[in-house]
């Protein structure tokens, strides 16, 4: 492990990679602060740029964007009660009341320290959990992987849909359907190409991500007539107040951080759960931990109530890298985008990544520490100034997002068919968004489609076409039992409310 850490440090501390983390954190913070544009859009816009770098640098850049976006989302939650991303909704419960009491600077400081501590503690957990889990996951066979992918898709559909489980499952199936377009990997037989040569290589992953997130989010903003930059315009440099915490506030923050880090990390590791659930869970648990007097302050500007979700959402970000790096199976839409990008580099994350590409494995973990320090430096003194940059009118912001989306995909293929296909998918996705059809299950399914088919193929060939492989191995049976449990629970909730 020591050797790995040194390899990781060597890569992460190179000037180029430090610059990438700074750039990623800065860009992520900006996008995270804009309500309506989430980390997936930020990462999607970055993918064409990452293809100019080596895989480790590319992944470091994307990871920086990811935790930068989560970090940035808290600022608009605290200052104007408009969470940039769902993971920072719980932050606004106590952050915004604090800002209204004239303690915006303190609230931002608590958020920054908590995020830093949560992310750093979780990165330490990741340091120990990832290699151990990698060794265990070497014993996984095709049926286990197939079952794990079904579990991942069901869990993401269950948790990202907010009570719209069937809609989320439809989106997951649509993602798998899109993944099947193009030549079959084993036999090279064309599928769903309708004799169109442009589709013979399948639909590009970057195209689908750009269309369903960057482009469709931009079109949704125009359709709804919202102005994401209004958040930045509302932030006044004068009204922030002091960022210095007193003894009591520091004590309360320090008490909350360890327990919320553990909750955040565990929830982050679970497939589909992610930072939103982690932050709500940590908020609820913290309320139970504190005394009656402190409990009364929740929702009115409690230090515990602000520190808990902020710690947990950043810890969950680090936690979500565990299944990606060790099993090669992303637990959330955001890490699914990263998996897609890694596959584009020709790298298959999974248990063998630890041995075949140790520099990637360890440098991502090590870069997290660098990223957390950079975020702390960025968030505390520079937030009001970053907010000024954000006050770009939407009349300029939206065309720029569309420009980077179209140009990004054009530069990858130099094929105008891809531009038209992307516009078509974006228009459909915008319509589906209006009726609350979630997009993360579609992306996760699209990324996992090829791997899922491959593992099902192997499993069925080994078992001579019988579906006994689903319960022959105890591990497969346990994973599928969890899947059935989630499916039944979601169906029960849906039917009960109907």
């Amino acid at each position, binding site marked *: 492990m020591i050797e790995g850490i040194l390899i990781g440090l060597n890569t992460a501390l190179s000037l180029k990679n430090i610059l990438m983390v700074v750039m990623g954190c800065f860009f992520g913070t900006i996008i995270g602060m804009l309500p309506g544009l989430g980390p997936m859009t930020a990462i999607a816009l970055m993918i064409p740029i990452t293809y100019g770098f080596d895989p480790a640098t590319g992944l470091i850049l994307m990871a920086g964007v990811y935790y930068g976006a989560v970090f940035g989302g808290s600022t608009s939650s605290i200052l104007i009660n408009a969470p940039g991303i769902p993971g920072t909704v719980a932050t606004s419960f106590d952050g915004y009341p604090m800002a209204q009491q004239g303690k915006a600077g303190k609230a931002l400081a608590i958020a920054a320290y908590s995020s830093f501590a949560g992310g750093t503690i979780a990165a330490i957990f990741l340091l120990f959990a990832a290699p151990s889990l990698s060794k265990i996951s070497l014993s996984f066979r095709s049926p286990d992987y197939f079952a794990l992918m079904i579990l991942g898709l069901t869990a993401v559909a269950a948790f990202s849909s907010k009570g719209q489980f069937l809609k989320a499952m439809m989106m997951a199936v649509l993602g*798998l359907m899109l993944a099947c377009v193009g030549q079959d990997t084993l036999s090279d037989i064309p599928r*769903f190409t309708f004799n169109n040569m442009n589709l013979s290589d399948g639909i590009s992953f970057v195209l689908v991500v750009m269309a369903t997130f960057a482009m469709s989010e931009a079109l949704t903003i125009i359709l709804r007539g919202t102005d994401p930059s209004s958040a930045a315009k509302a932030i006044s440099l004068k009204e922030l107040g002091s960022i210095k915490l007193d003894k009591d506030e520091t004590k309360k923050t320090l008490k909350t951080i360890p327990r919320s880090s553990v909750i955040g990390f565990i929830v982050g590791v679970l497939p589909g759960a992610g930072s939103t659930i982690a932050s709500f869970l940590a908020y609820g648990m913290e309320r139970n931990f504190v005394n009656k007097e402190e409990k009364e302050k929740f929702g009115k500007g409690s230090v515990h109530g602000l520190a808990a979700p902020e710690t947990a959402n950043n810890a969950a970000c680090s936690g979500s890298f565990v299944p990606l790096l060790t099993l090669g199976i992303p637990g959330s839409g955001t890490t699914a985008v990263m998996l897609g990008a890694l596959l584009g580099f020709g790298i298959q994350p999974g248990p063998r990544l630890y041995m075949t590409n140790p520099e990637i494995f360890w440098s991502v973990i090590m870069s997290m520490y660098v990223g957390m320090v950079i975020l702390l430096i960025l968030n505390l003194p520079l937030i009001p100034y970053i907010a000024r940059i954000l006050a770009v009118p939407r*009349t300029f912001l939206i*065309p720029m997002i569309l420009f980077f989306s179209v140009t990004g995909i054009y*530069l990858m293929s130099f094929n105008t068919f891809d531009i038209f296909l992307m516009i078509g998918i974006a228009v459909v996705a915008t319509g589906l968004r209006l009726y609350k059809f979630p997009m993360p299950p579609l992306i996760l399914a699209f990324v996992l489609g090829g791997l899922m088919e491959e593992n*099902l193929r192997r499993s069925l*060939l080994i078992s001579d076409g019988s579906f006994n492989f689903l319960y022959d191995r105890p591990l497969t049976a346990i994973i599928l039992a969890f899947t059935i449990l989630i499916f039944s629970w979601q169906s029960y909730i*849906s039917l009960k409310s109907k």
Partner: protein
Amino acid sequence: MKISSVKIISLLFFVLSAFYLYTANQIQVFAFDVNSPFNAKTFPIYLGYAGMFFAGLQILLPEKSVEKVNHNVLDYKKVIYLVIIMIFYGLTILKVGFFLSTSIFLLLSYYFLGERRWKLMLIFSFPFVAVFMFLLHGALNIYLRDPLLKYLGIIG
């Protein structure tokens, strides 16, 4: 009985899944693969059934709360303009070249979104694209086809 928009979308998805299933069955596999436990059409066939299953459930089960979208407040006009501009951009990028088509795309997008500060609009179109192209050529070494700039002798 009033049919909600979500049910109509689900019905469309059901039809799409049925068509997908039909197309999956039409996939020509190799003769030696026809009776194999798994071939090129096995997975798509399962997906077709799965799509029909979930869409069917969404259609048949009663809705918890009908998703209401107020179409009167949605700005369809601007979105349609943007989509047309993007299609126009896609059609011209190869023929006219990256520089001119991108600059016009940006200029038109700013205009149709309601921007009227011409000075800023011009700065963030032609010079902005020129700097972007310079970075692509100079820093990332990416060649961009541009007949206009080639004709003018600016790029080789």
